[in-house]
């Protein structure tokens, strides 16, 4: 049974509040009426992975030409990866951006901590909002991918940002743009190759709509990334952006 079709019958079951399926050993979802998705048990089946699985999935994101990822996760999309890859990214952004500031200033070590809320908002909205929008668009256009598979796909595509963030430590502007370009390319290829199988079933125009959405969101994510977090190269820019930060904070 395909996952897309299974999700529809689950929705039908949820529409009948009287129907009550018990949680059996295979980890099926427990329907408890309209608000099933607010319980913890609803999401438990999506955490059915081990650490080797997670590492295997992350490795698969760096090799976009082999569509291993969708084959691996079709039956078992997981949510652990998306959530904690983004959390790791938030920490790394804070750490690397602060380390960059250590280099450029001599005596007064002034560290910016405003990255944390910015990074959290940016990463989590993109990591969860984009796949939800994409999944809705795809369902309208007739593709069979469930929400959780798209979220899983997008979340793991964020793992391309992990080495990029570490490399952003270096001050060379050309180098930064090069690795950002590599990141954009890698994640777009990863997403498109994995969606290819599903997309080939559609007409050309619909395919390009979806590809267009994917490309736009990835480009905007990486541009945001570069311009907001890692645009400090010289001391002049630091004063400029920290002054901009102070003006935008109502507490000051």
């Amino acid at each position: 049974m395909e996952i897309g079709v299974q999700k529809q019958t689950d929705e039908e079951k949820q529409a009948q509040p009287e129907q009550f399926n018990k949680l059996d050993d295979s980890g099926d979802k427990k329907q408890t009426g309209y608000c099933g998705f607010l319980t913890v048990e609803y999401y438990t089946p999506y955490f059915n992975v081990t650490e080797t699985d997670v590492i295997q999935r992350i490795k698969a994101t760096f090799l976009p030409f082999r569509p291993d990822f969708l084959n691996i996760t079709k039956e078992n999309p997981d949510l652990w990866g998306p959530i904690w890859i983004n959390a790791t990214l938030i920490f790394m952004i804070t750490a690397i951006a602060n380390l960059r500031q250590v280099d450029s200033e001599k005596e007064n070590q002034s560290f910016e901590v405003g990255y944390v809320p910015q990074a959290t908002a940016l990463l989590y909205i993109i990591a969860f909002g984009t796949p939800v929008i994409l999944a809705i668009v795809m369902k309208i256009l007739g593709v069979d991918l469930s929400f959780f598979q798209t979220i899983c796909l997008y979340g793991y595509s964020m793992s391309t940002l992990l080495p990029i963030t570490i490399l952003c430590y270096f001050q060379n502007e050309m180098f930064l743009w090069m690795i950002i370009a590599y990141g954009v390319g890698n994640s777009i290829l990863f997403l498109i190759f994995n969606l290819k199988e599903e997309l080939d079933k559609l007409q050309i125009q619909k395919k390009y709509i979806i590809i267009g959405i994917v490309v736009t969101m990835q480009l905007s994510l990486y541009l945001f990334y570069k311009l907001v977090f890692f645009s400090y190269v010289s001391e002049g820019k630091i004063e400029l952006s920290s002054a901009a930060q102070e003006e935008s904070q109502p507490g000051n």
Partner: protein
Amino acid sequence: MDYTNQKQPQNYSQMEDLKTLDLEESVSETIMRDLRMIAYKLKYVLIPKEQEDNGKELRNWDLWGPLIFCLALAMTLSFKADSTTSSSKSDVFAIIFVLIWVGAFVVTLNAQLLGGKVSFFQSVCLLGYCVFPINIEAIIIAFVGSYLPFVVKLIPVIICFAWSAYSSVGFMASLVPPHKKKLAVYPVFLFYLFLSWFSLIV
């Protein structure tokens, strides 16, 4: 001092008996009793030798301890923030406070989603108590940090981070099935790493 021999309540039914006396005792006694319970739990959580009954004491969870340590950490870091960061004090305080509570919430939720059968507040309580070493290192760095080079500051940071992580990992790893242990432990590690980083930077 061994607090278990005194008339400190060790479970809820004993606390019920003492409640009738609560109204008659002075405020300082009430506060001292709470403080002694917090100190007892702290020793229990952080010093592994005290745990003879495999963590059953943690069932008497309370959130006062975590709140005190969270406030202390946020105040220490925001106190230093004025002179060393370009963000305002209230920003730093807010970030640390939200980070601790939301972080504990998310880490506990993660353990539950991975299949762990643990009471939610018990786990939040444990994570809050293990923030205490981070508090110690924040105070050390706040007072003597400006006189030390970066590398020397790393030593207490790493020791306290390892202490926090080690104390809470034992509990967390026992909650989930064995093949998912690292998935439950990694968020705890990330949580304390984040807090240690802040105490180092600010």
